């Protein structure tokens, strides 16, 4: 079980880095191209949500991304430092609330909570939302199963090549 951890400043420019890291882990874990595409998008949505929350509630704090892979699958956890969320998946929407404060002149139209939720729901079968360990903030965990390894196929990522 390999665990990659990433702490990123909460600004939109860093969301791309999160996508890069998770995609690298997913490829290594053996996920197929189509799944990797979905995962890239879903992780981007989860991170954009966290960045949006931080901008409103905790601009100095960083967003934490943890990628865990084992032979059964890949799990990506995105933890924000926003207000604590309940266990309902609907609370994920909290991060998408228009925080531009422009009072509906239309300039905030790039923040589309329903679009982001629609994407997450459409892309990932296994989404879990819970309070982060520290009691504040929320962890959104996305999971993708891995096909069972074919004997003689690519080596487990746990073993270093030699």
């Amino acid at each position, binding site marked *: 079980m390999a665990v990659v951890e990433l702490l990123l400043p909460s600004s939109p420019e860093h969301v791309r880095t999160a996508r890069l890291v998770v995609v690298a882990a997913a490829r290594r874990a053996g996920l197929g191209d189509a799944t990797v595409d979905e995962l890239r*998008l879903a992780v981007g949505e989860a991170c954009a949500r966290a960045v949006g929350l931080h901008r409103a509630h905790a601009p100095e704090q960083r967003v934490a991304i943890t990628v865990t892979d084992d032979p059964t699958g890949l799990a990506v956890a995105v933890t924000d430092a926003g207000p604590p969320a309940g266990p309902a998946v609907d609370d994920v929407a909290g991060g998408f609330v228009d925080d531009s404060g422009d009072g509906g002149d*239309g300039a905030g*139209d790039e*923040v589309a909570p329903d679009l*982001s939720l*629609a*994407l997450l729901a459409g892309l990932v079968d296994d989404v879990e939302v819970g309070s982060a360990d520290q009691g504040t903030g929320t962890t959104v965990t996305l999971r993708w199963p891995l096909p069972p390894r074919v004997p003689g196929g690519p080596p487990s990522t746990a073993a270093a090549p030699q």
Partner: protein
Amino acid sequence: MDLSLSTRSESSPAGDRTVVVVGGEIDVYTAPKLREQLIDLVSSGQYHLVVDMEGVEFLDSTGLGVLVGGLKRVRAHEGSLRLVCTQERILKIFRITGLTKVFPIHSSVDEAVAATD
């Protein structure tokens, strides 16, 4: 930095159209640039837009939101916003979010420029 934008004018029997060619990644970081571009066009009186997405490598919900915002803006002036996209991975994103029902999606710029329906 990973978003490229360029615009040009095209004419058809249907009238003048502004083609916006978008390339690279449209995401939470770069989407504001696309939004600015669309706002500028509408502000300068260009209400019939064709957004060529064939060079788009990545599109997230922020990018979708900017396109929806652009559509609202041109519609406020009886205009149109048509997309050109044949990439399956991008089309899928429009389908998942139900936006294939909101945007006219064409398979070539010529088709989009000529469209009137």
